């Protein structure tokens, strides 16, 4: 587990360092698919929060659910 944490830390530092020198390969005007509501990672938060609670109450595992990102990329 510590290895995965280390990899993620290094990866995020790498991303931060490379900031600005990478040209976006998906242009802002090519993001129509991500703006489609069916592509939303979490279309109905009230519903996904409930089902995740059902899992967490009955299983030993917890965490690393949910995500940010995607979407139309406007502004």
């Amino acid at each position: 587990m510590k290895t995965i944490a280390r990899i993620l830390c290094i990866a995020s530092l790498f991303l931060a360092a490379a900031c600005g020198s990478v040209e976006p390969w998906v242009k802002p005007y090519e993001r129509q698919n991500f703006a489609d509501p069916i592509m939303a990672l979490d279309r109905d938060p009230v519903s996904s929060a409930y089902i995740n609670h059902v899992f967490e109450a009955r299983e030993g595992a917890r965490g690393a659910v949910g995500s940010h990102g995607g979407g139309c990329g406007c502004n």
Partner: protein
Amino acid sequence: MIRARITLPLVLLAAAVPAGAGVLPDDRADLLYHRYDGGGVTIDGPSLLVRKKFAEKYGVTANYYIDMVSSASIDVVTTASPYKEERTQGSLAFDMLNGKSQYSLSFTNSDENDYTANSLSFDVSQDMFGDLTTVSFGFSRGWDEVRKRGDDTFVEPVDRRTYRVGVSQIVTPSLMMGLSYELVSDEGFLNNPYRSVRYLDPESPAGYTYQPEAYPHTRTSSAASVRARYFLPYRAAVSGEYRYYTDTWGIGAHTAEITYTHPWTERWIFELGLRFYTQDAADFYADLFPYADAQNFLARDKELSTFSNQMLSLGATYELSLDWKFLKRSTLSFFYDRMQFQYDDFRDLTTAGAPGAEALYEFDSNVFRFFFSGWF
């Protein structure tokens, strides 16, 4: 006692940013009826969520949730009597959008007659690389109080800390991927004051005797997950997710999930999902201990045993044409999930058999979600 710790998803619910870069989610209100039926337990109730933004820069989310429990799970039925109980949870979250950064602060309180949980969370998410990458960090702090029905002197605290980090990446105009890592650390009275373990006792009529469970005072867990969502050219979406979990109690778990979303005409969105979960028991878990006080720590909680579950989900969302002036758009959704649990080292004490030879426990449950959503 329901003893539902405030789970992260309910906190993330308030801080959720489905729109990603530079835009706050739309104003909406949802009213959900939820119902869980399985393993002798029925839990149902409402959940109300309202979200509003101001000047496209600030957002507020409020959620009110109730669990009404009737009957009792196998743990309690074999050592106590069935009961009815209610748990109420409220949460409030504030979001602020500042260019490519988004900040969220949320507070959640959960209350039942023998357990109170409070949690405070702070999350930051940052868009970079032409808004193709979103990096997020978050921290939560929880303060719980464990009480015991019938014993007013029993009051024990639980302290929780959670750290999370995630990266989300748009890979192609049709594919996005994400990685998450979360560390949870609990300290305090982590077990259930009503639950017991059993040990072999030839002198007892049943062949075994109960004693209270004993858990470590700390538990630290790590979970890492990877997910992908892909847009199919005929307009549909498919998602896959895998999570690996491990903790200091010796529990290791794998979760794998796949979801398919299919819109049909202008009115319907159908969803099909499959989820698989498998877990190894905690180090101090046993269904039947050889004698009293066999170990420093003792557990017979089926949630800490070796088991697996499989779930099939079916969902449908229908676009309504309500003519209400203040509503831009509204939908009605219904989700049905069927979960099957099989335990490898937890035995069903309502069945016959010599101690340690009773049938392994298994059960099915049905979960229902029925909700109305309105955008204003």
